[in-house]
């Protein structure tokens, strides 16, 4: 039997019995679509989840600083070091910070003490902070060395007795600063009691503020943390001494997040695998049923001169049409789901990963079709003509 005849006859058979095969087709298609979605979109999904993770402890923020030892020259992060750290694969952003242990302000005859941090414009993004009131200062404000201050909620309540502080002025280290906004998204109480001014302004105007010797790195996903931590010393050493460098990560939080994520991913894959295995059993089952219900047809075809291998090839090819057809439907559904999910989480599905999934999906479908269809096909091919023709 020629290949083109075989394919034509098999496709025709599958289409004519499409109602019988509907359940199997849907099981395999949904399984393939689900696998594609998890494989292609999980990184983007983790990235978005990671951003929200700051609310539960910022497990993917790496904190770095130079230790201040009495008999050593103080160290700080150079501009080129910052650029080098930003280039490490998996790092999404980096922020430089300088800290004044204690600053003071006067308000209506009273004095208030608080922590003052000089930060760059990336600080908000890296630490996952947003304005509760007003706005946070930007790149241009840092460049222009503006006297703007952002207050933590607790500090604002302590000084002004309210959260309506935008546009007010406060004195810090004998300079007047305009309050530009109130900081939201804080899970750390020390930040709620702090004030934030542009790093450049702090270096110009605040006496006793440290050199910018603290740095925060935001990492894309929790899977990237280990790799980034390992790459940090070399990235720093390329531009300056890393002798006093200290790197801190919330390892315990990270471990727990990874653990939870692993189980979630495991159950998703398990559920999808179960769907595909059920699809495989479905093919086996419908092909066995087809062999039984088409026994007379098999006998008739053998009486017309079909060889055992013709019957084997026909049933195997029908199983393959079923599995590959289902996989193609699954790929289409998966692509559609990728686009929809990409729209909602604000990312575009990576084409190379999609093509890999396409190839894997089709390969798996061939494996499934052959695996599930082989035994029924062998059964069909071994039938004797007379018993098949007389089958009721």
């Amino acid at each position, binding site marked *: *039997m*020629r290949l083109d005849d075989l394919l034509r006859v098999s496709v025709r058979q599958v289409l004519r019995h499409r109602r019988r095969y509907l359940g199997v087709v849907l099981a395999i298609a949904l399984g393939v679509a689900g696998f594609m979605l998890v494989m292609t979109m999980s990184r983007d999904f983790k990235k978005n989840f990671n951003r929200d993770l700051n609310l539960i402890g910022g497990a993917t923020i790496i904190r770095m600083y130079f230790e201040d030892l009495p008999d050593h020259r103080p160290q700080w992060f150079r501009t080129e070091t910052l650029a080098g750290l930003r280039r490490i694969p998996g790092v999404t952003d980096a922020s430089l910070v300088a800290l004044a242990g204690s600053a003071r302000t006067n308000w209506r005859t009273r004095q208030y003490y608080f922590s003052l941090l000089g930060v760059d414009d990336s600080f908000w993004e890296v630490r996952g902070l947003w304005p509760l009131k007003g706005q946070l200062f930007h790149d241009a404000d840092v460049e222009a060395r503006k006297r703007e201050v952002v207050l933590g909620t607790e500090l604002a309540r302590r000084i002004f007795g309210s959260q309506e502080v935008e546009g007010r002025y406060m004195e810090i280290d004998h300079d007047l600063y305009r309050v530009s906004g109130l900081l939201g998204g804080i899970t750390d109480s020390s930040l709620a009691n702090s004030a934030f001014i542009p790093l450049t302004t702090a270096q110009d105007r605040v006496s006793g503020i440290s050199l910018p010797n603290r740095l925060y790195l935001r990492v894309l996903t929790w899977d990237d943390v280990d790799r980034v931590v390992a790459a940090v010393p070399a990235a720093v050493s390329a531009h300056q001494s890393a002798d006093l460098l200290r790197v801190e990560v919330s390892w315990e939080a990270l471990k727990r997040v990874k653990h939870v994520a692993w189980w979630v991913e495991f159950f998703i894959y398990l559920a999808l695998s179960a769907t595909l295995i059920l699809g495989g059993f479905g093919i086996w089952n419908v092909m066995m049923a087809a062999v039984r219900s088409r026994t007379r047809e098999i006998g*008739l075809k053998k009486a*017309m*001169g079909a*060889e*055992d291998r013709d019957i084997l090839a026909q049933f195997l090819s029908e199983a393959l049409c079923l599995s590959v057809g289902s996989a193609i439907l699954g790929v289409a559904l998966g692509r559609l789901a990728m686009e929809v999910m990409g729209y909602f989480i604000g990312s575009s599905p990576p084409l190379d990963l999609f093509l890999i999934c396409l190839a894997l999906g089709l390969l798996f479908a061939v494996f499934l079709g052959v695996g599930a269809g082989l035994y029924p096909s062998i059964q069909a091919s071994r039938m004797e*003509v*007379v018993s098949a*023709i007389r089958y009721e």
Partner: protein
Amino acid sequence: MANGALISVSNLAKIYANGVGTIPVLQKVNLKIFPGEMVAVMGPSGSGKSTLLFILGLFLHPTRGSYHLAGEDVLKLDRTAQAEFRRRRVGFVFQSCDLLENSTVYENLEFPLIYAGVDRRERPARILAALEQVNLEHRIHHASNHLSGGERQRVAVARALVNQPQVILADEPTGQLDRSHSHLIMDHFAEIVKKAETAVVVVTHDPEIAGRCTRVCSLDDGILYEG
């Protein structure tokens, strides 16, 4: 070819073993059929008529005896060669108008051609020619389950003819048809043996159908008698 016989069967026996004992279905069958002959095989139910036909079509292997088709000992053929034999040398018509369900008349006639490796471009003409022999060319694209009993049996005859076999084996081809359709089928067989050097073996209960054949044989207790 022994004495010009197309089919030459001698001392053919088929004995089934059922665990308790043996059942001799065919005991001693000797038969010669020549090209252009239409031979009827009659006999009561269970006399082994269908078994003989299945052996002639190489669907069953006899317990002993010899079977030559056009001088060739076909009982020595292996499984692949047996399929080749069924593709090219015999055409089979079954009692129960067995057509492939959910298929058109064209598709039913195409399968023997597919298995015989006939070129795809050549198939429509061959199918049309076979259908013309049974006056059903106008039904070529109709679904087989939309045909009447008589039409289905004529399609089965056309399918047996499509590969231009040397022998047509028909197992009670008119068993489910009324008188007029039965005669129509026999007319087609008569036409076929007249046109081509073909032999037709018809198994039947019906003396009237047997009377349309050139020769009648009877099977009784597994022994074949002429006349």
